[in-house]
């Protein structure tokens, strides 16, 4: 209920192409774009004005259009994604990106984690099979749009890496250190690049 109250402040509904204001007094935020001197809406939704950040040089307010149905997310460089590992090879691992910035997407995108992007230290001594296995769920950051085949992902940070995995015996793996996880059924220890989950 509180969320709806926030959506309605600023009120009026706009459709694509409608004039929201002048680009001298407003900055185009999400759901709006600038064309010459005017700022227009690009999706259907409620118009919302966000006041400028107190320390910034640009004292113009930002106008946003909050739509009921945002289009499916597309991974951008810098966004945190959740992916499932599909293939592990000697120098890279393939993954299916399933969530972008905590928004699930309907159809998967393909990502790739290279050997040098698995962790931050000793990158040339990385063994891919001891970092990931097919079926692991990992949290990664998008490095770039990559080549034609896949986005480039990286897990070279403490909070990135394997979030959830299944052991060989079929039980859930519980993290016990940076590089080890333990099966809860058999007690067997397996190697992974583990994410530090808060």
């Amino acid at each position, binding site marked *: *209920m509180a969320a*709806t109250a926030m*959506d309605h402040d600023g009120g009026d*509904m706009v*459709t*694509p*192409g*409608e*004039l929201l204001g002048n680009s001298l007094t407003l900055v185009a935020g999400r*759901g709006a*774009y600038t*064309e010459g001197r005017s700022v*227009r809406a*690009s*999706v*259907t*939704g409620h118009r919302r004005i966000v006041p400028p950040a107190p320390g910034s040089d640009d004292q113009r307010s930002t106008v946003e259009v909050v*739509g*009921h*149905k*945002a*289009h*499916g997310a*597309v991974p951008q460089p810098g966004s945190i994604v959740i992916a499932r590992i599909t293939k592990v090879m000697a120098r890279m691992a393939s993954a299916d990106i399933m969530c972008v910035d905590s928004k699930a*997407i*309907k*159809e*998967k*995108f*393909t990502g790739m984690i290279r050997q040098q992007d698995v962790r931050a230290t000793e990158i040339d001594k990385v063994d891919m099979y001891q970092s990931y296995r097919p079926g692991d769920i990992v949290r990664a950051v998008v490095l770039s*749009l990559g080549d*034609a*085949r896949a*986005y480039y992902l990286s897990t070279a940070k403490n909070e990135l890496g394997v979030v959830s995995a299944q052991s060989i015996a079929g039980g859930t793996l519980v993290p016990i250190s940076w590089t080890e996880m333990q099966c809860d059924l058999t007690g067997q220890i397996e190697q992974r690049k583990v994410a530090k989950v808060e």
Partner: protein
Amino acid sequence: MEYVNPLTGFRVDGRRPNEMRQLKAEVGVVARADGSALFEMGNTRVIAAVYGPREIQNKGQQVNNKEALVRCEYRMAEFSTGDRRRKPKGDRRSTEISLVIRQTMEASILKDLMPCSQIDIFVQVLQADGGTRSACINAATLALADAGIPMRDIVTSCSAGYLCSTPLLDLNYVEDSAGGPDVTVGILAKMDKVTLLQMDAKLPMDTFESVMGLAIEGCKAIATYIREVLLENTKRLECQRG
């Protein structure tokens, strides 16, 4: 044959020369698609479904890495015309109309916000009674807006012709097959810019201007209707969400 009655001024279906057929639109008809719409202009019924932005399926088609790839396919259902059609897609007319719709919608979609992805627009004609091209563009606009894909403006399209020395708005199949000129115009409604202009047959220049002007007025009327439909749909979804 007299397409405009000289005494009363009515056309074959009882409309006035500057009167459009009845419009009806419905949003969200295909549940599986990201956005969809059903658009009717008189007896012409068209359904559009939009999928995207999603991963590019055929990497060979991608020309520009920094923009989304827009694909469009136009089909006519076999039962859409009087005689059952043999080849619903792949014939030259369908290929041409697919290209035309794609170029028209590409002018409005903000492609650089979704790099490395693909947007598919599928339009199918369920019932054809003249003006299918325009109905498809209007349906595609509604479907794209329903999918939440950012656009510069609402694209609307309408056709106009010139029979019995009168500019006629929104030709139906009978008037279209009369052999007279048929001007199809597509505009970005609020920004007043033309994205599609097609004509077959020939017209003298000043007559052309009046016919095109009539078509543009028709487009603006459709834009007002489409805007109402979108606002209505958003209000209904918000009520459902609570």
